[in-house]
């Protein structure tokens, strides 16, 4: 696959999978210190179960693109060790539920080494993983665990909502000097969006106003942002002006951009796919009300999935998962509060 994107023969859109893949190809072209390791990622093994790494080992060799034993703790541990030797390793954890295995290496080492070594060393690794409910993959293949990592000092957590962002943010993670967790959504991987500019890095830690509006701020990351964009278009027809704040980087959170948006609209709906309780939404909502209590025209609302294990059955899974209709209802609810005043 060519990484050149500005040819006339190419379509004007790419999928998420293509965006992830291009970012990996381009990063490895840009810097020989970029190496990749993970389960089944080599071309001889099929190029990864979702084909994101397809072509990498053929192009860059198995010294740089290594299929590993099924040892997630060793994948991350070896990536940490390689980073200490000057590499920028990309460690792939096939599915996010498997990331519970290397928690020790991530939480106690990758995240803390810069601090605990007195600043002598750092761990510029990127952990790529994928997850997301809605594809019928059950409670051990679907969890959104981003809040666990956002809670750890020293970690950066990134979730893209468009293919172009996926490309720029993945490059941003790979060339960042702190350990990054990059979460790919398995449900939307074939969805398309405008093509990114080759080599263009999106700096981490900065939220993006995906759509400007004046009545209510919808704040989120990843898949629910795509739902919010569709809803914003629909509600515009009714004269409701929705501002969509795409965090891009969940942690460290760009509080400034969030507060600026909510200060303007006076209303906030925080959305995420992960279960509601103790999720990132609670932190975002708290930061908003701590700073903007007197300016809020309505309580900050959260839309999230239910606090149960992701069930396998399609019917149950749909009932578990947050719904776009729930986001719409929350937006209308914040506006009703205004009417009641």
């Amino acid at each position: 696959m060519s990484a050149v994107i500005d040819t006339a023969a190419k379509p004007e859109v790419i999928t998420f999978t293509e965006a992830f893949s291009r970012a990996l190809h381009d990063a490895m072209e840009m810097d020989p210190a970029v190496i990749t390791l993970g389960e089944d990622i080599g071309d001889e093994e099929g190029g990864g179960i979702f084909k994101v790494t397809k072509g990498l080992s053929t192009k860059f060799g198995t010294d740089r693109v290594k299929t590993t034993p099924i040892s997630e703790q060793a994948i991350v541990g070896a990536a940490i060790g390689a980073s200490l030797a000057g590499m920028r390793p990309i460690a792939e954890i096939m599915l996010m539920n498997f990331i519970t295995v290397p928690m020790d290496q991530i939480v106690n080492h990758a995240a803390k080494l810069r601090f605990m070594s007195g600043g002598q060393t750092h761990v510029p690794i990127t952990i790529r993983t994928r997850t997301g409910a809605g594809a019928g993959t059950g409670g051990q293949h679907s969890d959104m665990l981003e809040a666990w990592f956002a809670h750890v000092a020293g970690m950066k957590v990134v979730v893209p909502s468009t293919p172009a962002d996926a490309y720029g943010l993945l490059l941003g993670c790979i060339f960042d000097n702190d350990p990054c967790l990059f979460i790919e959504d398995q449900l939307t991987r074939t969805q398309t969006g405008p093509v990114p500019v080759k080599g263009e890095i999106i700096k981490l830690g900065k939220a993006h106003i995906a759509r400007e509006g004046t009545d209510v701020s919808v704040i989120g990351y990843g898949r629910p942002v795509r739902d919010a964009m569709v809803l914003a278009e629909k509600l515009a027809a009714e004269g409701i002006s929705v501002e969509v704040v795409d965090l891009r980087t969940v942690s460290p959170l760009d509080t400034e951009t969030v507060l600026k948006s909510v200060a303007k609209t006076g209303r906030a709906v925080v959305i995420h796919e992960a279960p509601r309780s103790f999720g990132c939404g609670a932190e975002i909502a708290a930061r908003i009300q701590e700073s903007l209590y007197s300016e809020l025209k309505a309580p900050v609302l959260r839309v999230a999935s239910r606090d149960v294990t992701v069930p396998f059955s399609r019917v149950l899974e749909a009932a578990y998962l947050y719904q776009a209709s729930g986001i719409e209802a929350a937006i209308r609810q914040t506006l009703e509060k205004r009417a009641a005043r």
Partner: protein
Amino acid sequence: MSSASLNPEASVAADSGHQPLRFYVPEPKCRPGSAPDFSGIQLPTEVLPRPPVDASQDQLHAYAYGLIRVLGDDHKIIDEWNPQLDANVLRKGLRSMLLTRIYDQRMLRAQRTGKTSFYMQCTGEEAIAVAQAMALEPDDMCFPSYRQQGLLIAREWPLVDMMCQVYNNSEDRMKGRQLPVFYSAKKAGFFSISGNLGTQFVQAVGWAMASAYKGDTRLAAAWVGDGTTAEADFHYALTFAAVYRVPVLLNVVNNQWAISSFQGIAGGEVTTFAARAVGYGLPGLRVDGNDFLAVYAATKWAIARARAGMGATVIELYTYRAAAHSSSDDPSGYRPEGEGALWPLGDPIERLKQHLIAIGEWSQEQHDALTSELTEEVKSAGKEAESFGTLGSKGTSPSTMFDDVYKELPQHLRRQRQQLGY
């Protein structure tokens, strides 16, 4: 209570014609109050020759169960593992071991007098870190556990710097963020010590793979204790090291005790820790860890093998933790007093000293003079370190606490720092 009484269906089980099932809980041979007894430790009488470094793994099985020794009980060289070291090298080894012990003694006293909160000695294990540091190149990368301070000392890292870390004073390069003795010295190739045991094993494997990928010549070496072989990271590291033939040395310091649990609790009764390597297709060498020459020779063999592209070696360094686990531990609660003095493999410093005397390269007078000199050196370093403060006297400003969490200070940390008044 017998297990049968827990089982209301025991009579049914008896009717099945099978004996009730059982399991076994390992217990050390002696506990406090009984006389120390190492009679169960059989020192191999067979001398294993030094194999070629490219020997196939199946030719090396015996080395995982034997014991490589060079210094015999009569302090003379006993086998062909003799690394043929110059007397100057041996005296340097003796000096580093002795300096390590005297350093430990002073720092433990410092802990007892409240100058720091915590200390860990490596008494009886000095030959391991010192001989291995000397066998490695100075820029080979070390991923130690918390009882290899001898690596730093053999690499001539300043004692004052180590003491400042232990005292957590104004010159502590860890800036008050790390437990005492959890040193980190990037310039000495000494990686930050981990409190979660064994994590450094896989990190060393990754480091060594990156070194090879870069076309570098630097090896990695890592250390864990006997207890840590029960951690998953140990097994992950051996898997990776075997699969990719990684140029790394994976050392298991079997000092018989994991805090208060004897090595049988980690599975040391049924087989050796070196034998763990066999199942992974890696060579395992079991070495007399109190024999400076044997540790040096076995380490050199593993280094030569790694450099020849033959991959990793697991080395079990058979030794005895003569002191408490740490300043917070009291061994009199779980092992007989005076056990260390009866350890059948002796004391590493005494053995090298007696060897040097036996070959006419050292004397008791020289040893006494060296002891005085090193005691003065440690005392002088201690005074200098203490001039920068001891625990709690000259702390680090809380304003620095927000540095190095990330490369750049994020918004929320800037705010939290401001809230603290900085």
